[in-house]
């Protein structure tokens, strides 16, 4: 792999806080190495800004290994940038060439208000999980882990759904700001396992109700979420949730 240096033009969304209006600022970044990660490039820019006495760009990031789900940038019209199955923190500058212009925006959705610059508030996701994204089992002495065999295909499918990192790229990409991929990944993960079966009905109903309350849109199966998901979560999960939901709603005898 040949390494090279490049000069870039960055247009970054700057917003002081949730109350004030934001706008784009343009920055020139010089001598960026192709070996840097995208966030390291922003680090370098921030270092320059601090040295010039300016406010550095605030952005969410933590593990920088593509697993914590904290990083969230909408780069040139795509959440997490141009690479497939990738988070921003794992995006490397090899993806760009000298002279490129890069536009960086925060996740946009009413349910994800901007806190500052590129940081958004994703606590709506926590509340969706609180609504039912768990198996109600207290710590104690459950049955032996091998007491209930789980067929490998199902276990694998549950694992594939459980790979979601809750970054919110699905919402950012969706034209309806729908959280269905996030929600359905959790509902599928739990519904596919025998341990999660007793609550699958109430879970589907409660989680969807919370999603609606948070102001996310509904799913129109465009597939944009799946295309940008860093963990390759399939929209098959959404179909499964739709089914779970209606089965639960139809047989519910309340009301």
């Amino acid at each position, binding site marked *: 792999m040949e390494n090279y240096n490049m000069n870039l033009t960055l247009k970054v969304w700057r917003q002081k806080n949730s109350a004030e209006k934001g706008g784009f600022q343009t920055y020139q970044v010089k001598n960026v190495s192709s070996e840097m990660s995208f966030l390291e490039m922003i680090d370098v820019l921030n270092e320059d800004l601090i040295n010039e006495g300016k406010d550095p760009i605030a952005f969410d990031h933590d593990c920088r290994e593509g697993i914590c789900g904290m990083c969230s940038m*909408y780069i040139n019209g795509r959440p997490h940038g141009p690479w497939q199955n990738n988070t921003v923190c794992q995006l490397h500058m090899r993806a760009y060439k000298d002279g490129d212009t890069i536009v960086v925006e925060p996740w946009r*959705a009413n349910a994800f208000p901007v806190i500052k610059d590129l940081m958004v508030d994703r606590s709506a996701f926590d509340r969706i999980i609180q609504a039912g994204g768990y198996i109600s089992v207290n710590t104690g002495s459950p049955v032996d882990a091998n007491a209930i065999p789980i067929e490998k295909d199902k276990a694998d499918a549950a694992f594939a759904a459980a790979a979601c990192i809750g970054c919110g790229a699905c919402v950012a990409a969706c034209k309806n700001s729908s959280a269905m991929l996030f929600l359905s990944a959790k509902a599928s993960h739990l519904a596919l396992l025998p341990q999660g079966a007793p609550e699958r009905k109430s879970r589907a109903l409660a989680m*969807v109700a919370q999603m609606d309350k948070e102001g996310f849109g509904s799913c129109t199966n465009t*597939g944009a979420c*799946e295309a940008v998901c860093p963990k390759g979560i399939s929209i098959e999960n959404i179909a499964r949730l739709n089914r779970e939901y209606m089965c639960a709603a139809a047989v519910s005898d309340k009301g």
Partner: protein
Amino acid sequence: MKWSEIFTSSVGKKWIIALTGLFLITFLIVHAGLNACIWVNDGGTMFNAGAHFMGSTVVIRIVEVGLMLGFVLHIVQGIMLEIQNRRTRKIGYAVAMGNKGSKWYSRSMGLLGTLILIFLVIHLSHFWIPNRSNQGWLLGEEINLYERMKITFQELWVVIVYVVGCISLAWHLLHGFQSAFRTIGVTNKKYLKMLNALGTGFSIIVPFVFALMPISFYLGWIK
């Protein structure tokens, strides 16, 4: 959970759109099949016999009410959903995502649906409304629909409107057909593959058949 809660939830609404959509798809099959009788080229005898059956059978007329209801639900829910979904993002992106990840027509169901609705109004005012009003909303005398088609499709602009309507329908179906099955929860990859193929075929063939009708009359392929 009350019915009202179910069908006002985001997933419930989608179910209504999907189910009514699938119902309308079955209607399209009947409609296209019947209209294809024009190509028998018998001066409209077979076509009018079919039309007569549809227009004067009590059961069918009752089902027609269901069909209207299906249209209304599909349209009203569709518009409401579109409006709601548009409101979920007050500040948009400076750089749009465009086709990175989704097809333009899957993002344009509202627009395509509106075009189809406009076409539908024109279409109904050409045939269905005059016919039913002639019948006095009961099982009265029908007009000769074949003749009416012949006359209507002499105008070039009408033919163009119909062709545009059919193209809109094709795109609408291309997304709608498979989307409906996803909404009602088909996850099996084997069946999804089959349904996708079926959906693509359906979305091309049916609107094509419809579009061919005004063209056939306009170009004088049928007498």
